């Protein structure tokens, strides 16, 4: 389990760096491909609670360190994304027992649910900035900046889940639901 958690940490770190080099989708009005949420959400569905929390902390912090300018003008406190990732992460962790039953259909369904939760951190960031700047500004680009990653994740997340389940097998991680004593 620890080995797989480390694999996920390493992958989240790598894809966080990688996504900085992926250009935005012009045909989706500049929406970005967000890779780390898919890896985080798989961790939330398979790892026990403490590791899930650690993974959420790491992903949120890494996201802010790599994308938010360290300046008062950003109107965003570094580390806030930890809380923004906490909500979808815990929702998915709550469905862990369903995921671990191992049925392909529920796996696919939860992968799609994870994809639908992908825009939540972006929405949260937008809400924080709007609150700090005291202006709710709206245009098509904003809508796509929030929803676009979710649209892309509908295709991307099941593929990531498939690869990660294969990787989990490689490091001999067979997650089971802990039964209360």
């Amino acid at each position, binding site marked *: 389990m620890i080995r797989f958690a480390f694999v996920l940490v390493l992958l989240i770190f790598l894809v966080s760096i990688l*996504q*900085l080099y*992926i*250009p*935005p989708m*012009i045909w989706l*009005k*500049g929406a*970005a491909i*967000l890779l780390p949420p898919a890896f985080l959400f798989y961790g939330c569905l398979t790892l026990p609670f403490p590791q899930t929390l650690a993974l959420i902390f790491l992903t949120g912090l890494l996201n802010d360190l790599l*994308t*938010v*300018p*360290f*300046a008062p*003008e*950003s*109107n*965003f406190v570094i580390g806030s994304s930890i809380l923004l990732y906490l909500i979808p992460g815990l929702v998915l962790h709550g469905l862990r027992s369903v995921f671990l039953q191992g049925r392909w259909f529920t796996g696919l369904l939860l992968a799609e649910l994870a994809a639908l939760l992908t825009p939540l951190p972006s929405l949260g*960031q*937008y809400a924080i*900035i709007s609150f700090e*700047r005291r202006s709710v*500004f709206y*245009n*098509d*680009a*904003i809508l*796509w*900046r929030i929803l676009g990653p979710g649209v892309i994740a509908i295709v991307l997340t099941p593929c990531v889940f498939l690869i990660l389940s294969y990787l989990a097998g490689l490091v001999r991680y067979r997650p089971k639901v802990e039964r209360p004593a």
Partner: protein
Amino acid sequence: MSGGLKKLDELERENRELRTEIAELRTSNALMKNLESEVNRLNRALGFREHSPFNLLPAHVIARESISWWNSCTIDRGIANGVRVDMAVVTEAGLVGKIVTVAKDSAVVLLVSDEGLKVSVSIEGTQEQGIISGTRASSNYTPDLRVGFISKTAEVKAGMQVFTSGTGGVFPSGVLVGTVKAFTIKELEGVATVEPAVDLTRIEDVFVITGTR
């Protein structure tokens, strides 16, 4: 007859060779054109650096932020080169932004197109001053800017140039920011829509203003 056929073969070969040569010349011509535009761009930058009233530190854009709500880029100069937070960044065309984070060998520039960057500006040919800012998100890297707090009675027309006013002390005065596209009168203020002077999609080489001469 055989001599004529031989000549036809030769002509075909010659034709093939000429076609190859044309393709090669076209490729080298395209390369020359690229080089020419590169030399022109560097000449303009050099001329700007020599004639500018500011001390300019040349820098190269090494990364561009595209996945977040903030418009920024990273340059290859940092503390080791004398770059400090709040220094203005320009090109020969005009204002790019300001330094917000500095590391040893790199620095993050918040672009003028970012909503959070407010710059005090004055409009050419008028006594009008206002605050210019960008937009929160746009599908375009170079979205129009917005100058607020202009007097409702101001005679601002499309085509007028907008310069930094120097108020606030971060940006030196007289740096071109953009050109007015439209002027609208709102309830409390006049608002000018400004096209940025710098094409932020294509910024490669910039200058950090480290002081005045």
